[in-house]
């Protein structure tokens, strides 16, 4: 039961964190200047966006959930199963960021889900 809870935190909090960071980055705009001073100014602006902190917080929860999961299961099981985040990411980007997800991307997500199911079944 704990495995499922930690896995849902890895997928849910990890994907939620990435979506929050993505939303924060989009509000800041595209980076054109890669000089160190300009990058530091960019990081400073990013640190003032609430979505960024929400994202970092969620990604921290996901990281510690990954550690907990790795204490219980083999790494060759845990890491492939976390590929489910592609499905959560596509669904989240579609709803939360209003991105258009192409049929090809949904097909890829479906194939990933089939692969994750096979890996999950390999536990027995």
């Amino acid at each position, binding site marked *: 039961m*704990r495995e499922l809870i*930690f896995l849902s935190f890895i997928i849910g909090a990890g994907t939620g964190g990435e979506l929050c960071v993505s939303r924060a980055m989009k509000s800041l705009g595209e980076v054109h200047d*890669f000089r160190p001073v300009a990058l530091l100014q960019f990081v400073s602006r990013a640190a003032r966006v609430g979505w960024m902190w929400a994202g970092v917080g969620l990604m921290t929860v996901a990281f510690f959930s*990954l*550690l*907990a*999961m*790795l*204490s*219980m299961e*083999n*790494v*060759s*099981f*845990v*890491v*492939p199963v976390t*590929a489910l985040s*592609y499905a959560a990411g*596509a669904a989240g*980007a579609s709803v939360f*960021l*209003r*991105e*258009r*997800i*192409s049929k*090809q*991307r949904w*097909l*890829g*997500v*479906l*194939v*990933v*889900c*089939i*692969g*994750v*199911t*096979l*890996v*999950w*079944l*390999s536990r027995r």
Partner: protein
Amino acid sequence: MKTAPGLHIKTYIFILFMVFFAPLGNVLLSKGMKGIGSAKNWDLSEPLPVLMRILTSGYIWLGIACLLTFFVAYMLVLTWADYSYVQPASAFSYLVVAVLGLLLLGEKVNVLRWGGIAVICVGVFIVGRTHPRTTEKT
């Protein structure tokens, strides 16, 4: 994107770094966490002792260092290579993590798991071949 041969070699080297260091980081985290003990036995009402054992594990910090190396390589390669070129290549990391788990941790990987991992790699490759931008440029 530039097409100079030197740039191609640099791109391959950085992608190799990505595909190696992310799985190695996860394997080291796994090694460290196995030494700390299963989360099934953790007393979640008192997280501090577990947290201290995690933060004082050398394998955990080595794992984090590998994941940071991956992240820096990933960020750097994206400054000159297209995301749609880099992302599919990262699909191989799922295969590498199983190989490293087998070789370094002695994990048993059965045929069904190898098959599942191969299917995941194909799926990630398909996702990576789609256009990275799906919304109007603002």
